[in-house]
């Protein structure tokens, strides 16, 4: 049985879920996607000498926490794929609260020793609280770089920090060692967010970041830095927001705005941050005393691989 099947079996057997068919259905649907984020506690569990099976409650807790966050995130973003379109905003908000609580229940019902259980519960609860703060800050649309990084460190990093942290704790790590892996997870979360921002800024058709006037890193760069195309970029941004309000897609404006992102160095800036954080994460990992580090090294490598491929396609030698 693979880890997702084990995790699903574990959660579906929790008594609270057995009385709630809608939760069961949503869990099964989400687990079928095999979201790679859910498996993040496994490499840290194994890195500290734990067995894969020990990380199953952590996978369950993380999966439930992610479902809870997505349900709310889609409401905040008015995302067309959001569950709220199917079941309505009230039921969505209620299910989100239930999944957040189920995340803690998955740990409370595990057979982990009490001190580790308490530390895991605290970690998950803190991640949920910080993520909610991050969502709140993000909804206020950060207008400068300091505000942007604050959103990243509240909205994105806590989930990944907790993923690394709870995997290590269930694997039997000391509190100190687990804390070091949490910091690595926080940094890993920043890497994921920068990738996500680059992806969204370059997406076709226009992502909600464009249509709702949000400011992911590349767009923030292009509208903040003094460059020759800044005025034109701001004009195109307004046109894209307006076209979304009117329901009339404007692919030419999007293509021109994305070309400006490339030309003005906004994409380069995001890539620069990926390279910097990747280097920091590798250095941090080398300094952590672990039984095995191959799984974590592979995770970090995945983040810089697309950059290396991009540079190779351009015929340049960077990111070696």
């Amino acid at each position, binding site marked *: 049985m693979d880890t997702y099947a084990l995790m699903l079996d574990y959660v579906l057997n929790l008594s609270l879920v057995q009385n709630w068919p809608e939760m069961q259905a*949503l869990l099964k*649907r*989400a687990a079928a*996607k095999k979201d*790679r*984020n859910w498996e993040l506690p496994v490499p840290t569990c194994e890195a500290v000498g734990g067995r894969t099976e020990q990380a199953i409650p952590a996978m369950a807790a993380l999966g439930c926490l*992610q*479902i809870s*966050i*997505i*349900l709310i*995130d889609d409401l905040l973003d008015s*995302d067309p*794929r959001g*569950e709220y379109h199917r079941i309505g905003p009230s039921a969505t908000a209620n299910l989100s609260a239930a999944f957040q609580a189920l995340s803690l229940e998955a740990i409370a019902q595990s057979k982990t020793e009490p001190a580790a259980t308490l530390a895991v519960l605290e970690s998950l609860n803190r991640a949920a609280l910080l993520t909610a703060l991050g969502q709140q800050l993000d909804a206020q649309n950060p207008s*400068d*770089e300091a505000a942007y990084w604050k959103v990243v460190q509240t909205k994105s990093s806590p989930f990944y920090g907790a993923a690394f942290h709870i995997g290590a704790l269930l694997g039997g790590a000391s509190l100190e060692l687990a804390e070091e892996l949490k910091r690595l997870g926080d940094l890993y979360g920043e890497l*994921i*967010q920068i*990738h*996500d921002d*680059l*992806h*969204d800024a*370059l*997406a076709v058709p226009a992502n909600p970041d464009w249509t709702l006037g949000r400011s992911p890193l590349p767009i*923030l*760069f292009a509208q*903040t*830095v*003094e*460059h020759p195309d800044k005025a034109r970029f701001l004009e195109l941004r307004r046109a894209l927001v307006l076209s979304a309000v009117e329901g009339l897609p404007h692919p030419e404006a999007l*293509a021109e705005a*994305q*070309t400006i992102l*490339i*030309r*003005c*160095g906004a*994409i*380069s*800036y995001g*890539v*620069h941050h990926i*390279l910097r954080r990747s280097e920091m994460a590798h250095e941090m990992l080398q300094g952590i005393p672990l039984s095995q580090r191959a799984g974590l090294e592979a995770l970090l490598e*995945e983040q810089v*691989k*697309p*950059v290396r*491929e*991009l*540079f*190779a*396609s*351009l*015929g*340049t*030698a*960077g*990111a070696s």
Partner: protein
Amino acid sequence: MSTMQEFYQQLFQALERDSSDCASLLQLTQASPAQLVALKGLLNWGDWHLEAA
């Protein structure tokens, strides 16, 4: 000067040309959107949705 502005100046004035990453980042500003497919291709981690795209 903001960190972003400083990066912009360094990138286009190529104050750090000795760095291969800096040269690559400068070359990236001349890429076509199609070439950025390599960067976009492996980035499905951020797809936080309950349904597939």
